[in-house]
């Protein structure tokens, strides 16, 4: 159950350097591809593998690649989305930091498959130290002939560079990322045209997540069919999960898709159970934007089946009783955590990160933050709960990009599963405030209400 395809060699001394990476089978996939595979062969293998976008949307990668327009004489671009910013997610950072050449190798393979000769890794500005690791690795790759003109005598040219963001969650949305890489504000574009037709500098462009691109390496090495053998159903291969919250062993795990959620949370091999012997209260399995699951829907679906770490099983029951695998940002809450406070915190995040283009998101995220704040700080009214529900419904689906949905879903799910806790915040505000981590004292409560 635990084949490691991406992180197998993490832990090997010096694996972040070219020579050690090479000694452990690094760049073999590039050698193989350039010698014996056409670009279309690679696209075919990726299609066969069933690989789905690892950034959160889960769209089949091979299909996304096949959409790229190929007008004569117009350069195409591959962009790696390393703008990892979804709360709860820190896997791409881990991969890039520990084994940067795996991403570079994946970029070479994917660029070759798409016919791109100039590719970029767009990394969030806060990951400045990771950017430096990548630039060092890229310099090594150039020095060893894996990048540049006529790579290993194949006739294929590729230039690869890293560019930086500067603090904007929205730039993880692919068209905002493109805008940002053009040196502009990260305002998402209206689609169509899709990036596959008009992307960076109006040229055909593919944007893929770090982990997705890295996964192309084992797919080329072992073949798409072999990759598709791993996992369950349409959830093939392995997935990096970033685990955080009240668990004994938070961190990044490469799991085989299909692992049971129960084993993931409670086995010592993974999260080692809830910290301090407390009970599980809730779990956000795929980054802050996916619906929160109450404890009774975490390890089992509403139908009573074992919940698995797959795209399908985590979504089982739809939004009524399910959630999403998303980015794999797995946040665990123990019995002491306050759902209202957590929802307010996430709403503040989305309000802060809204680019401001679409009124429902720009205004709605702010309203949700305010209403949740007053519920959390003891000024809430019962009708606020329905008001919140109404606001989130009016944001969802009414914006240019999915940030609006991402802001709406956590609020909807929190009310859906924890309505009583919201009501309790209205009835017994004082109790709740002192309970919240002991942060708010009697005195500040009076001040707030003053």
């Amino acid at each position, binding site marked *: 159950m635990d084949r490691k395809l991406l992180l197998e060699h993490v832990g090997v001394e010096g694996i972040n350097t070219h020579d050690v990476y090479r000694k452990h089978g690094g760049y073999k996939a590039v050698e193989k591809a350039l010698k014996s595979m056409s670009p279309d062969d690679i696209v075919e293998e990726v299609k066969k593998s069933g690989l789905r976008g690892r950034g959160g949307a889960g769209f089949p990668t091979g299909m996304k690649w096949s959409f790229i327009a190929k007008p004569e004489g117009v350069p195409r671009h591959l962009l790696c989305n390393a703008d*990892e*910013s*979804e*709360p*709860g*997610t*820190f896997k*791409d*950072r881990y991969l890039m930091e520990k084994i940067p050449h795996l991403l570079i190798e994946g970029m070479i393979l994917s660029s070759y498959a798409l016919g791109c000769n*100039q590719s*970029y890794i767009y990394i*969030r*500005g*806060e*990951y*400045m*130290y990771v950017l*430096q690791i990548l630039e060092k690795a890229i310099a090594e790759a150039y020095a060893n002939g894996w990048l540049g003109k006529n790579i290993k005598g194949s006739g294929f040219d590729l230039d690869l*560079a890293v*560019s*930086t*963001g*500067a*603090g*904007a*969650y929205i730039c993880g949305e692919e068209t905002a990322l493109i805008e*940002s*890489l*053009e*040196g*502009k*504000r*990260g305002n998402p574009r209206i689609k169509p045209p899709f990036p596959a037709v008009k992307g960076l*500098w109006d040229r055909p462009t593919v944007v893929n997540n770090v982990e997705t691109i890295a996964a192309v390496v084992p797919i080329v090495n072992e073949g798409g069919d072999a990759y598709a053998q791993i996992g369950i159903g349409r959830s093939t291969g392995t997935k990096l999960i*970033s*685990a*955080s*919250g*009240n668990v004994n062993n*938070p*961190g*990044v795990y490469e799991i085989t898709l299909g692992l049971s959620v129960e084993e993931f949370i409670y086995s010592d091999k993974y999260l080692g159970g809830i910290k301090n012997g407390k009970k599980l209260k809730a779990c*956000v399995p795929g980054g*802050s934007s996916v619906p929160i699951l109450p404890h009774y829907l975490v390890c089992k679906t509403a139908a009573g089946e074992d919940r698995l770490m797959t795209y399908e099983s985590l979504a089982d029951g739809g939004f009524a009783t399910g959630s999403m695998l998303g980015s794999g*940002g797995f*946040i665990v*809450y123990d019995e002491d*955590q306050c759902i209202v*406070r*957590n929802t307010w*915190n*996430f709403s503040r*995040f989305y309000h*802060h*990160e809204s*680019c401001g283009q679409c009124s429902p998101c720009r205004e709605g995220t702010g309203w949700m933050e305010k209403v949740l704040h007053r519920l959390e700080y003891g000024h809430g009214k019962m009708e606020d709960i329905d008001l919140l529900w109404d606001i989130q419904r009016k944001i969802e689906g009414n914006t240019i990009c999915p940030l609006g949905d991402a802001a709406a879903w956590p609020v909807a799910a929190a009310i859906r599963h924890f309505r009583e806790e919201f009501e309790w915040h209205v009835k017994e505000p004082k109790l709740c405030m002192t309970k919240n*981590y002991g*942060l708010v004292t009697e005195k500040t409560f009076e001040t707030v209400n003053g």
Partner: protein
Amino acid sequence: MSQENIQFPEPLLQEVARQIAKFPEGKQKSALLSVLHLAQAHFGYLSEPVMDYVARLLHLLPIEVYEVATFYSMYDTKPVGKVKLEVCRTGPCMIEGAEKIVAYIENKLGIKDGETTADGIFTLKTVECLGACGYAPMLQAGEKFHEHLTEAKVDELIEQYRKNPNANYLGLENHGS
């Protein structure tokens, strides 16, 4: 800072050229975010004259620089301390005690979120998710991540940066002239 004094030293000009060279000819605007990071590190913050200088370097209109500098949360268009202590406040960090860490720093430095110490060394800022959720609570000081924070660790960090504020930059030794 008067207009004439705003000038990158040679190594930084070379770095600007390297950033521009990452992009095809005529697409130097793509280097804007990187060059703004350099300018902020070097000049302390992005004042209007600094932004105008960046515009001249990249052959852009000043407004093209202003609109970017005001969009991204990492850029400061007002003066800040030499070391920005940016504490992550989002979900996973919150449940691991980020609010207590913020309160501790506020008390220790005698400033509130968003303020700068009188000696001009520290600015405290709460920020949104920095991608360190499994190692919470955490803060970023300049370009460096500090994770698994405790009050003792915060004491140590503040001591260390007070002695050597430039230690919050990773490379390009001439940052923060």
